[in-house]
């Protein structure tokens, strides 16, 4: 009886949190679905009635849809490659015993604490400005013509900014993984005659497998929805319009809530496909 009682009390006490979470998720989701089937133009007549799948068809058939998907994938893929590779190298570097280890580690994590908007603005104005930016000075120092980063190499610039923000996260997770590696395993492989690079490939990299999948999974979820970095730098111009940014433009710039909502539903589907795909990989990796 006691367990029966405590179980129902537990349910009662969990209820507020569950209801809040459900509402948090369900209300916006239902509203998005609701609006995606309507022609709704707030400044041009308001709610103009149901239109079926019109919005969905229009969103996909827009000439900017496929380029947006491509831009999204390039940014996500580029950032993942850079953060994972540099993250592994940095983690191995930080794992070495050195003077001031604690301070260095905090400094490495620091970029993660800077708000995306702020860091993107700092990059845009202090580093990538073609006249006064640090990179422009560097280029001129070597006698080269400064690049106007955000217009000439817009995609590269955004990948650089976002990578800089996410590198600390990857480094941190990979560092904890490296620290959990049994040093006797490395010594054993050293005695077995494996030189440094082979030790990395045969011992360290497999040990990091799990941590790498987790980094990829978490980062993908967040990177699919980056927005601020694009908003304050290129504003979606020069081929940097991602799916998220396109939805924003449909809703706020064209004031077409219905069309934007349909885009939102596509984004949900895309995120879920990626999530299922990743969960499978992670699941396999975690079982082994």
């Amino acid at each position, binding site marked *: 009886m006691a367990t029966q009682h405590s179980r129902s009390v537990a349910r009662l006490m969990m209820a507020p949190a569950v209801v809040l979470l459900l509402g948090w998720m369900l209300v916006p989701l239902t509203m998005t679905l609701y609006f995606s089937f309507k022609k709704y133009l707030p400044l041009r007549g308001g709610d103009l009635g149901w239109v079926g799948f019109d919005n969905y068809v229009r969103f996909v058939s827009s000439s900017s849809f496929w380029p947006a998907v491509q831009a999204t994938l390039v940014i996500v893929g580029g950032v993942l490659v850079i953060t994972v590779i540099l993250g592994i190298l940095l983690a191995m570097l930080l794992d070495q015993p050195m003077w001031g280890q604690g301070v260095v580690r905090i400094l490495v994590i620091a970029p993660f604490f800077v708000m995306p908007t702020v860091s993107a603005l700092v990059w845009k104005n202090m580093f990538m400005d073609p006249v006064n930016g640090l990179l422009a000075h560097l280029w001129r120092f070597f006698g080269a013509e400064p690049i106007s980063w955000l217009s000439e190499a817009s995609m590269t610039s955004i990948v650089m900014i976002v990578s800089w923000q996410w590198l600390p996260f990857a480094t941190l997770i990979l560092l904890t993984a490296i620290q959990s590696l049994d040093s006797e395993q490395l*010594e054993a492989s050293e005695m077995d005659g494996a030189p440094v690079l082979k030790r990395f490939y045969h011992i360290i990299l497999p040990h990091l497998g799990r941590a790498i999948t987790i980094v990829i999974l978490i980062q993908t979820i967040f990177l699919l929805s980056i927005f601020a970095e694009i908003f304050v730098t290129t504003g979606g111009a020069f081929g940097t319009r991602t799916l998220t940014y396109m939805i924003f433009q449909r809703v706020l710039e064209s004031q077409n809530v219905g069309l934007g909502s349909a885009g939102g539903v596509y984004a949900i589907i895309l995120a879920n496909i990626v999530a299922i795909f990743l969960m499978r990989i992670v699941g396999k990796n975690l079982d082994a």
Partner: protein
Amino acid sequence: MGRIQLKSVTKSFGDVEVIPPLDLTIEDGEFTVFVGPSGCGKSTLLRLIAGLEDMTSGSIDIDGADATDVPPAKRGLAMVFQSYALYPHMTVRKNIAFPLRMAKQDQAEIDKRVEGAASVLNLTDYLDRRPGQLSGGQRQRVAIGRAIVREPAAFLFDEPLSNLDAALRVGMRLEISELHERLATTMIYVTHDQVEAMTMADKIVVLQAGVIEQVGSPLELYRTPRNLFVAGFIGSPKMNFIEGPEAEKLGAQTIGIRPEHIAVSESEGDWSGVVSVSEHLGSDTFFHVHETGLAETITVRADGEVSFRHGDRIYLTPRSDVIHRFDAKGLRFE
């Protein structure tokens, strides 16, 4: 083939000298055990021989060639670690084959040697499992397998049995001894357990605080320990040490008598005392005797059939020919 010679080897970590100058020769084919209490520098010494630690000064010769600056992989030694250090993402087969793959042997040769090692160690049925699916004893055997496929000049064992339960430990002890008989390769074995040292070794090296206290065969150490430390460390239960008038009678600062060299009687004897605890092992019985006026506790080993109980007064007679005498410095003299 596997003669290892250490010449005035020292090791310091910062200002702390863990191993003061030390000389030691390990003959080819010998089973040498380094034994000592924890923190005595025995593992450090093994790691110096393996090349995993750099010597502060001194030199090491392996097979007559100077190996002081030779990297671990090139010394021709194989090591079995305390944690086994198996590679968790590789199957048993790949674990054992790893050193051969690193040495770029051809696949046919690798297969042959892995199969050979597996059959010697009874691992044939487990070759396609991963270390995580094996028991402690099996993992231990994989670690040994990975060492023997390399056909090294010498094997180094770093407390390999300390993670096993008591029954398995006895079994593995035998297996390692048999392996040594079969391969006749030099083996260096580190342990803090004097029973392992006594049962397996051809030669025991007793270490304390980085200093070699005595080197000798198990029975030499048992019969003629050089000093109090070795006398107390080798043998189980520990030797009884007696100071005071009883020792002065024999002209010594301290005398030592092993528990198995004291006869027990309920009516007469040289010494008397009261039994505090008796431990019955079946084959033997150990009595811890108090109130003897000689030392706080005298431990006595008697036959399993002898049964005295807590509080009984008993009489003890030491065998006079096996009493060890020690001078003021703790050194044994005849």
